[in-house]
Every structure is written in C-alpha cells, then in structure tokens.
C-alpha cells in the first residue's frame, strides 16, 4: 500500500471546523482512485495531506496517521520523499516556477531541483512533453501559452519528476473537452505502475477512467468502492456528486444502481 490514512482529521489554521474528519482509506497502484464530493468537501485538502503539504506548508493541525510510501510525508523523514510524490493543482499560473524562460526549462524545474544529471533531465522533459503532445512549444515562453496549454505543461512538469504517487487536483479544469478526454484516458495507463489519485467534480468525463471512487462530504468519507455502487445511488444524487446520466436516470425513476455513462445507459435501456 503506497498511501495509508487512518482516522485522519485536519484543520486549517484559524478555521472553525475540521476540513477532514476521521478519514481512513488505502491506495495502491493498479487503478485510478477518484476522490470527489461537493465543493468544499475536502478533496483538495485530502490530496495536500497525502502529500504532506498540509500541515507542513499550509500550517494547521493534523491528527491520525498518514503514511505515504512508508513515511509520514509531513514528518522529519519527508526529505526521503522529495520528488516521489507529485501534485498538480487546479490553476496553472500560480504553479509556474517563476524562473523559467522556456517551456522546457519550466518542465525541467522539478528534476533540476532534485539534482538529476542533465542527460536524464533532458530525456524526462522530452518524454513528458511528448505525452501531452506539446513538443512544439518547448522553446516558447510559458507566459505566452493559453490556459489549456499551460495546464498540460504543468501536468508534464509533474510527470517529468517520475513520481510514484501522482495526486491530481482538477487537472482538466482549463482544458477543452477533447483535451480533457485525452488526459483522463491516459490516467489508467499511468496508474498501472504508479498510485494515481484524482480529485475532480468533472465526473461525466472522469468516471470512465476511475477504478475506484471515494466520496467525501463535509470532510468525512461517506462512500468507498467501485464507481457504479458509489455514484449510482440516491445518496450520491442528493449530495450532487454524480454524473449527469445518473441524475437523469434517477429523475426518470430507473432502478438502482443508476448507469453512470451514456454507454452504460444505452446498454441498460435499449433492451
């Protein structure tokens, strides 16, 4: 198990309520773990806790046990984990390194900080840019890119560090539909060798990539299992954390569990 949380609660500094309440689950490579819930349910906080950034960078107090790749990511051994956990945040612009003049340099920022030798960095950057189909912008200034291109570049920047645990927070927020589909389609491939945890409310597109869903509400885990049994329930429809197709099926009075995608709905209802 590369990620193990046991009864983890977390509260931001100065906050009146816990952002996470007694969260317990485990993750391993093999499938894409999808974390979802209403806005404010705690999905982003969960990723930051797994990465150790909460509380190390955000401040605040954490209780319970967090073990990522065998260590507490916010504890004294976190230096062993440098570069082995990747986190992609929703807004690309605030993730710019601030010192890169070309896209290639931007993607190379993380690997260079890890002290890799130049040849290894060059290969990692080339591969990462090829993955997101942006080799042609390698020499451009990142500040001249569109939102969608920049988000793909930041995705490449995370991948270039070759992390064992990939935490993705709304990675397709700035992408057009085709770009988003391409990104989600790639995640199961990534998840074969790594632990991929995806936090998003874009369930219509992301659900086909997910092998497992963790549903959060108010900081607590209210569901953990395969997509159909977690998202295809009336409770999921109530909390608003489900796909459009399931919502339609629920309103139309279909039997449980609701189909989640168009393809599943066609298969169910065209009998």
């Amino acid at each position, binding site marked *: 198990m590369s990620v193990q949380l046991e009864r983890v609660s977390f509260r931001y500094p100065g906050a009146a309520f816990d952002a996470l309440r007694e969260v317990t689950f485990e993750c391993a490579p093999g499938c894409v773990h999808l974390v979802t819930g209403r806005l404010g349910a705690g999905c982003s906080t969960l990723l*930051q806790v797994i*990465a150790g*950034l909460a509380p*190390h*960078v*955000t401040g605040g107090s954490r209780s319970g046990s967090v073990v990522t790749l065998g260590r507490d990511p916010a504890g004294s051994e976190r*230096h062993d984990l*440098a*570069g082995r*956990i*990747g*986190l992609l*945040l929703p*807004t690309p612009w*605030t*993730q*710019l*390194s*601030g*010192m*890169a*003049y070309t896209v290639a*340099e931007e993607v*190379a*920022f*993380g*690997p*260079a*900080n*890890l*002290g*890799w*030798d*130049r040849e290894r*960095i060059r290969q990692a950057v080339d591969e990462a840019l090829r993955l997101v189909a942006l080799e042609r912008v390698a020499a451009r200034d990142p500040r001249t890119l569109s939102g969608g291109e920049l988000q793909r570049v930041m995705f490449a*920047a995370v991948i270039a*560090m070759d992390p064992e645990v990939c935490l993705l927070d709304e990675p397709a927020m700035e992408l057009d539909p085709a770009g988003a589909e391409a990104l989600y389609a790639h995640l199961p491939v990534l998840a074969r060798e790594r632990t991929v945890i995806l936090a998003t409310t874009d369930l219509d597109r992301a659900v086909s990539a997910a092998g497992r869903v963790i549903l959060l509400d108010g900081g607590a885990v209210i569901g953990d299992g395969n997509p159909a049994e977690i998202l295809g329930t009336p409770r999921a429809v109530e909390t608003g954390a489900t796909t459009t197709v399931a919502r339609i099926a629920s309103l139309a009075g279909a039997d449980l569990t609701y189909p989640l995608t168009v393809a599943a709905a066609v298969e169910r209802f065209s009998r």
Partner: protein
Amino acid sequence: MTLGYRPGQGLLHRTHPLTTAALAGAVSLLAFLLPGELAPWALVAGLCALALVAGLVPVLGAAAAFSAPFWGFLAVIHGVFGHDLGTAVVLAGRITAILTVFLLLLASVHPGRLVDAMLARGVPFGLAYLLAATLQAVPQLQRRATAILDAQRCRGLRVRGSVLRRLRAVVPLTVPLVLGALAEVDERALALEIRGAASGTRRTPLDPPVDGPWDRATRWILLAAVAGVAIWRLWP
C-alpha cells in the same frame, strides 16, 4: 520579459556573466578611486570602445539618455550655485560610467543565464531563485498595478485635486494589488515545495555558461587593477 537584454553573439555575449559583472563592479569602484576630474570620463571612453567592439552601440544611446538629466542637475547645483564646475564634471563622469557599464551588462546577459551562472558558482539556490523569480514577478505586478489604476479610474477615482484627495486615492490603488498578491502565496508555496524548491539537494544548472581561461584571467586582472589603485590612493 528580458529587461534591457539584446540578443546577439558579440564579445560580451560570449563572455561569462560573472566576468561582465566583475567588469561592472571594477568600473564602479575605479570611478570613485581614480584621481582627476577626467578619470571617470576616460572610463566612459573605454566603455564606448568596448561597446563598439561588442556590437552594442545602441546601448550607448540609452546610457546617454538616462544620464542626461543628471548632467543637467549637476551643472545647475554644482556648476551654477556651487561655482565648482570641476566637481560637476567628476560626478557626471562617475554616474555616466557606472550607468553605461550596467546597461552593457544587462544588454549582454540573459537573466536566465545569470541564475545558472550563480548556481554553478555555488550561490545558495534560495538567493538565486529569489532574484530570478523577482525579475519575472516585477513586470507582472507592474502590469497589474496599471490595470488596477485604469479600473479604479473607470469607477470614478480621481487622482487630481487636493493633496488630501490624492493621498486618499493611494489606498484603493495599493490595497487590491497587495491583497491579490498575498492570496497567491499559498498556492505558489505548495507548488514550489512539491517541485523540490525547498529541498536541500544541489540543483543542476540547466545550461550553465562556459567559464573559459580568458574569463578567469580577465577577472584576476580586474581585481588586481582595482586593488592596485585602491592601495595607491588610500595608503596613508
């Protein structure tokens, strides 16, 4: 945005940034150490020759444009009111020499390469990063400041009028800029941390400039020159 940088392949472009920076430092010190009213102007003449050889003559125009107001002030303050034209000439020479050498430095060193050069020389990553990130953040914040100025003006903010009104206008122009910047600090910090910016590992310079034997020799010569002049002038 690359401030003042002019792409090229001339002599100064091929020189290691540290050498050019050492030249700037040496000229600045010599401008104060060398005796005589015309000594700083001799430095200026040398720099003009260097600019010619390095293909950076337009920089001289910029240097003259920046220095001119100071020549004017000095002529008035020291020349007319102080009745001491000699002082005016010396000070004008110093300002011009220092300004010219700095503009030549800016024109020939790409800011990205400067950081790599600093890292290759063992400057702690934190300081090198701060300088590099600042050079990118400054134009960004300046643009935002202008945008806020325009937006507030559209909403009726008056920046003319009584001193008190103008003073009060400073608040709606400043506070949004600062609060907006502070709101970004959290996310930026998260991204930097996870990308290893705060790790203790020695960062690999991506494209460090070559530090050749001529570079090292030139730096030693500059050091010797400044030390020699300093001893000559300051020895009791």
